[in-house]
């Protein structure tokens, strides 16, 4: 006879199968919990889930919007996976994004009346530099002074936001904008080209897919990727193998910062077209969920970014057609993360039923 309740036993090796299934399990559990919430609120759960997850992408425009929203999430998340694979907890991507927007956008404003093919590439480059420099600050603090990168990277988010505040209220304010806190618009050649007429999905998507592909190559085919992984799994083993942890920390932060910076620049030169205070609806923080939901794997991150992007779009349709408060979108994001962290247990542990007799 077996005991009624399973006991948790450590696996000798983490389960590759579970690694794949954990995100799916957490999404299924989220949908079930979501349905229960909808029923409790008095809605037909099928119609509610349809409104939340299908209706937003039932048009070409909707699908384009899904990609607009997923692009920065995926790009930042893939950058974060360089850090997270190495057990570096950079949670300051929002600040690196902001700095990228400031550097790249600054170039855009400097050449606001220039129309030239080199403008956008220069802005993207500057955005990457800005994000990388901002990412290197916690890297230096961590390696030189042994500070906790969770704190420093987070605090630098607010510093970056205040710098942006200062710029759009002060020196970069639109001279024709009645003193409102926003910059003048970038010139046409400082804008991300649109991929299709009438849709907002832009060239940033191509950049993102390209960088995800490069990252896949780095993670699986290069020594650097191998070093990141090893020193993440076992810092001691990495040290014995002679890997330089300091260099790894610097590279991880710089790459992550650069990717977030490009994401920020893509946002201001894409759908926005100028600088103002609220350029990002917390993409840098939401991307942390995306990175973990995607198991730090390039393909996983692509799907995860689409799922999380959908929760934003769904929240709007739910308000419009069901009159449900927008907070429902955040509830879904919270549920996904909650179940994800819970189900993570299954990767390294298994449930067994002890024999009683």
């Amino acid at each position: 006879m077996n005991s009624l309740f399973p006991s948790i036993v450590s696996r000798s090796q983490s389960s590759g199968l579970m690694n794949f299934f954990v995100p799916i399990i957490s999404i299924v559990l989220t949908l079930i919990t979501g349905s229960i919430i909808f029923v409790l609120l008095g809605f037909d759960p099928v119609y509610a889930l349809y409104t939340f997850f299908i209706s937003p992408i039932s048009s070409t425009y909707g699908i384009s919007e899904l990609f607009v929203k997923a692009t920065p999430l995926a790009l930042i998340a893939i950058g974060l996976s360089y850090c997270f694979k190495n057990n570096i907890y950079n949670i300051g991507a929002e600040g690196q994004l902001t700095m990228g927007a400031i550097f790249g956008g600054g170039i855009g404003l400097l050449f606001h009346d220039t129309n030239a093919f080199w403008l956008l590439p220069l802005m993207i480059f500057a955005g990457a530099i800005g994000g990388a420099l901002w990412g290197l600050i916690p890297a230096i603090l961590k390696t030189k002074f042994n500070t906790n990168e969770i704190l420093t990277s987070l605090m630098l988010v607010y510093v970056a936001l205040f710098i942006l505040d200062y710029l759009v209220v002060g020196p970069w304010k639109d001279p024709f904008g009645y003193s409102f806190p926003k910059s003048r618009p970038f010139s046409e050649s400082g804008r991300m080209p649109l991929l299709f007429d009438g849709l907002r999905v832009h060239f940033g998507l191509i950049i993102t897919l390209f960088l995800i592909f490069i990252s896949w190559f780095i993670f699986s085919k290069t020594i650097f990727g191998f070093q990141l992984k090893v020193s993440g799994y076992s810092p001691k083993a990495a040290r014995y193998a002679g890997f330089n942890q300091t260099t790894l920390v610097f590279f991880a932060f710089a790459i992550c910062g650069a990717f977030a910076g490009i994401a920020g620049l893509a946002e201001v030169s894409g759908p926005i077209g100028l600088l103002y205070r609220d350029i990002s609806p917390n993409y840098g923080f939401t991307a942390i969920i995306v990175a973990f939901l995607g198991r730090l794997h390039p393909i996983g991150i692509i799907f995860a970014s689409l799922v999380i992007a959908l929760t934003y779009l769904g929240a709007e349709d739910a308000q419009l057609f069901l009159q449900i408060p927008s907070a429902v979108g955040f509830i879904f994001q919270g549920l996904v993360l909650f179940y994800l962290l819970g189900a993570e247990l299954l990767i390294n542990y298994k449930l067994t039923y002890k024999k009683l007799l």
Partner: protein
Amino acid sequence: MIRIITFLSTFLVFAFGSAYADPKKVGFIYIGPPGDHGWTYMHDVGRKYMESQLGDSITTTYLENIPENADAVRAIRKLADSGHDLIFTTSFNYMDQTHEVAKDFPDIKFEHATGYIQADNVATYSARFYEGRMIEGHIAGHMTETNTIGYIASFPIPEVVRGINAFYLAASKVNPDIKMKIIWVFTWYDPGKEADAANTLINQGADIIVQHTDTYAPCQAAQKAGVYAFGQASNQEEFCPDAHLTSIEDIWGPYYAERAKAVVDGTWSSGDTWDGMDKGMVVMSPYNTKLMPASLIQEAVNMEVGIKDGTIHPFTGPIYNQAGELVVPEGEVAPDGMLLGMNFYVQGIDGEVPQ
């Protein structure tokens, strides 16, 4: 014969027209949740008023918590795509986004709050909140004992600067010794920052707190410290009854009803509306009879009457700027153009507008 046809068709329209005409859909974009006080709350009150006035001829929906960034385009377009006939975007920073969507939907009418750019299908509207500031200034000039006013300002945009000037001009008229301490918090809505600013101002000797931000945190901080405060956007009396002198209330309902009616009737046209107390768009909350002497309340009420009938204007010359230059000559009032672009302090206010 023609008369019979006319009669019949009129009859048919009256009998069936209202039953067959689809209700017009009116959508709103809100920067925050409606909640129970402040800017978005008052827009939602206006929306409900419009519903109550127009009954079955309209239906309304809103999208709340829409950030003022690229997301706003999607949200506005969502309303446009789902068959809305009239869309109100209720925050200044939806300006570019409103126009971006509006140009793709020429048949849909858009109304952008506090903006300054119009299009064929985009009207703008705002309220002359500064009229209320004048009354607040007058009250403050009488009520202060430390002659120090603490002013919590949001962003150095003309609307806010205009409010500060209107307040100071009225306050210094009754009390030439008055001093203004201004803290710029660079937010419209942040209870923590607003309360911190209020406490700082109180510590610096301010015994009246004025806010151009959205929460009741400053008013509650004032109540705790035993000083007075003016509320903003909605009547805040219930949150701080022992500090609250009055609030400037934004009353959007009649405007919303009028514009929606115009869409129902097919008479909507673009334009710029900037109404004040005379049209009931700016209303003072009931004056606090426990804290204010009856004579002062009477003066404030008289002032309201004067503003309404045009005999009183908050910006009546002579008005000097900080450099001592005459900007509004004696006997004249500041033109709307000057008010709309106002980015300077009047003489007597210390410090400078953040640039």
